[in-house]
């Protein structure tokens, strides 16, 4: 069978898979980033118990492979009586992953805010909360934006791991088509292209944005 007619045949199924991949990426980013912001703040807490707990959540989320966390939720937890569907388990694991990584990106952003800004806010008599919400956070998040955009692309790619627990995303669709007519090469090249069609433009936008920001603040 020639490549393009095979691809035309596969494409609808693959696009159904892409919808699930994009949904998973959307969930992990929209829930993970706000959680990451919260974790980033808790890590700087003066209460040692809060600090230790949030640090543990961040370090496990970054240190353990996402695949292991995925298996823990899907195959591990049922052994202690907690059962959930594959999409739910994948969401939990990827949200945790996104939260852990984004908390570090945002923390670095907050630290990059010039000390003089904070001193100026203190001199003006702003409260600590006000200083953070109105001065540090807006500037810190702005400098964290390219990093968060890059992380979003990584999260989109990480949704492919959900294949391992049979979520019907792009890889699952590809594997189903592959085992149907054994054209594994054509199927997986197409799967790669489906991911690339999303990641590449997103990468270029991120690079463009990063350059423009550098120029604006240089």
């Amino acid at each position: 069978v020639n490549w393009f007619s095979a691809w035309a045949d596969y494409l609808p199924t693959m696009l159904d898979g892409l919808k699930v991949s994009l949904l998973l990426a959307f969930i992990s980013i929209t829930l993970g980033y706000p959680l990451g912001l919260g974790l980033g703040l808790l890590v700087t807490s003066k209460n040692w118990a809060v600090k230790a707990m949030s640090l543990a959540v961040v370090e496990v989320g970054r240190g353990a492979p996402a695949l292991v966390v995925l298996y823990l939720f899907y195959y591990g937890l049922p052994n202690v009586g907690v059962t959930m569907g594959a999409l739910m388990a994948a969401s939990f694991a990827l949200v945790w992953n996104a939260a852990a990584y984004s908390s570090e990106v945002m923390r670095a952003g907050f630290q990059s805010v010039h000390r003089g800004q904070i001193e100026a806010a203190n001199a003006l008599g702003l409260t600590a909360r006000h200083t953070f919400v109105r001065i540090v956070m807006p500037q810190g998040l702005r400098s964290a934006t390219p990093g968060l955009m890059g992380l979003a692309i990584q999260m989109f790619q990480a949704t492919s791991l959900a294949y391992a627990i049979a979520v019907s995303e792009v890889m699952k669709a590809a594997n189903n088509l592959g085992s149907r007519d054994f054209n594994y090469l054509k199927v997986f090249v197409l799967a790669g292209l489906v991911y690339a069609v999303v990641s590449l433009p997103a990468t270029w936008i991120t690079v463009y944005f990063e350059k423009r920001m550098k120029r604006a603040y240089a």
Partner: protein
Amino acid sequence: MDVFSAVLQGLPMTLWLTAASFGIGALGAIPLALGLNSQNRLIWLVCRLSVDLVRGIPVIVWLFLLKFGMQFDAFRLSPTQAAILGLGIVSIAYLAEIYRGGLQSVPRGQVEAAEALGLKSRNVFFGVRAPLAFRIVSPSIATYLMSLLKDSSIASTIIVAELVYQSQTYARQHPDVQGILPYIIVGALYILLSLPVAYYSRRLDARMRKEIFA
């Protein structure tokens, strides 16, 4: 067999996958990094597009493509070969990007000083620019090595008997409360394995900053 020994059976394979693909990446990235720094727009464009393309495709797709897609007549890759090759290809692209960043961030004055001393352009590159660049990016390389270690777990999906595969096997044989243990142990093991690299890279980073930028 107890759960610890069962999981640890996979450790040599995980370390081998990581080391072998890192070796491929560290060497293979050199020509690509030079291409990314090339003045020739055509060479630059080809290298740029290949790096972006490789990085735009998830590791698991590379592994399946190599394991199941590359079967011609009698030729096929073993799971381990496919995993090393796939992780190696991905490493080449990521490390090339890291090397490129390093080459571009060598302070101009160092290169100009070398030129003013009359060094040949080849010596300026290999004697001054490349070693300095390597030091600047060595913390990033260490960070990448850690993420490669974690990515090697994806090889379990094409049945390579590394840490995660061994954990899965143990968990399947123990469908009771014990079944959750291997996942916790293996997760902790990855964190433990990345600690020395993290420590080393932080020390290296502090020393490098003093030596090059101070």
